[in-house]
């Protein structure tokens, strides 16, 4: 089967039915392995103690939050260039999932900040740019909810998604610049090459688990959205038939 055939919603539904059990099982396995490694294998940080384990949820959340917008940008191109309904569905369903992962990142970051920095929130560059990303997700969801006709909503949301994709790196850059200007040398650093392999390995397993979770949720959300649209169409047809009779 050619990949383009997947653009047919019925084919996609059939494939989703076949994929979902495997994806869900793989997600559960990866989470079991990742959480075990995170809680029992990974050593405690010599400064942060057990709170370093928050990172195993926090960092993958941030990655998937950003991946969500990247996926939406690709889907937005599909909506604007080919005007394909499945691209609309892919565009719409990625937003709440991406927002949820970004939210997980923000909340775990705040919970981690309390013992480490003594405060739930600092206006650090990373926190601030993730917050702006979250706000843009919420704006996009608000846009989806403002319009009844799904096709029109999709085209408007697609343009906004692409504008966001252009702007997010600029926002990230400016917030970095702003933060280093206001509070140099207090920026807390995790990641980069300074991370120890004993912590890096569980982190990567958790990242895999989060990615699989994202894929599972995404495929099932797309399936639900396709079914929801079919129900909507059937209802409209029913009303039309009732009025005609």
């Amino acid at each position, binding site marked *: 089967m050619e990949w383009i055939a997947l653009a047919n919603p019925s084919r996609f539904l059939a494939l989703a039915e076949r994929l979902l059990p495997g994806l869900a099982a793989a997600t559960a396995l990866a989470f079991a392995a990742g959480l075990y490694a995170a809680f029992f294998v990974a050593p405690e940080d010599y400064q942060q103690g057990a709170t370093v384990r928050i990172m195993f949820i926090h960092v993958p959340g941030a990655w998937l939050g950003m991946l969500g917008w990247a996926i939406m940008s690709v889907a937005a191109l599909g909506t*604007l260039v080919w005007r394909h309904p499945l691209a609309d569905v892919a565009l719409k369903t990625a937003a709440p999932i991406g927002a949820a992962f970004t939210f997980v990142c923000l909340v775990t970051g705040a919970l981690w900040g309390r013992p480490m920095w003594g405060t739930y929130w600092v206006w650090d560059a990373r926190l601030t740019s993730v917050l*702006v990303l979250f*706000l*843009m997700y*919420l*704006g996009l969801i*608000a*846009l989806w909810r*403002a*319009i009844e006709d799904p096709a*029109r*909503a999709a*085209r*408007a949301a*697609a*343009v*906004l998604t*692409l*504008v*966001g994709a*252009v*702007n997010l790196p*600029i*926002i990230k*850059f*400016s*917030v970095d*610049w*702003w933060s280093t*200007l206001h509070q140099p040398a207090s920026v807390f650093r995790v990641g980069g090459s300074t991370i120890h392999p004993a912590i890096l390995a569980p982190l990567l397993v958790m990242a895999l688990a989060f990615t699989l979770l994202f894929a599972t949720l995404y495929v099932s959300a797309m399936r639900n959205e396709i079914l929801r649209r079919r129900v909507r169409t059937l209802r409209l047809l029913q009303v039309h038939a009732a009025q005609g009779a």
Partner: protein
Amino acid sequence: MTALAALLLRDTRLAVRVGGGALMGVLFFLLVVTMVPFGVGPDLKLLGRIGPAILWIGALLATLLGLDRLLAADHDDGSLDLILMGHAPLELAVAAKALAHWLTTGLPLVIAAPLFGIFLNIDGSAIGIVALTLLVGTPALTFIGLIGAALAVALQRGGLLLPVLVLPLTVPVLIFGIAAGDAAILNAAPFGAPFLILIALTLTSVVIGPVAAAAVLRHGLD
């Protein structure tokens, strides 16, 4: 070209005549500046320190509030459809409209800013620099807002949706505008770099804004 000039002239005329509400933004700006001391207290030293930020936030809010007039009136009376079907490229047509909008709502804010700076105890030379950053930065706000105005028209939804969509996109403009303005009151802060980046942001949004707004109008109004 003459069509675009005519559009620019028409929008400017409409805005300054009765019912145009061009100076409403300045009045709102003055009110924001007046409300801030009630919030933070009448301490002149503190006001002088945060003055550039207050002027920028006030200008941002005043720009946002005027945005729904940018395309909505033309949509209501049908002239937007004429612009859509006209020979002039839609991108340039909406850019001309946004320019006219800035001339009648953004520029008055910039002109009023020095006076309001005195209220906020910003000293002489600093007032000039803050007004200069506003002059360079407010076009970016209008042209980014143009996208939101197009969305509001295409979706026939006004109200809070527009600011919710537009505000996150203005974060970089605000950061560099206030950073360049701060350079006037804090000797340590650099002026050149943020000011040049602010110019770059304005130029970028002058390109992105009309292209995205035209895409919204083409795809949204059918």
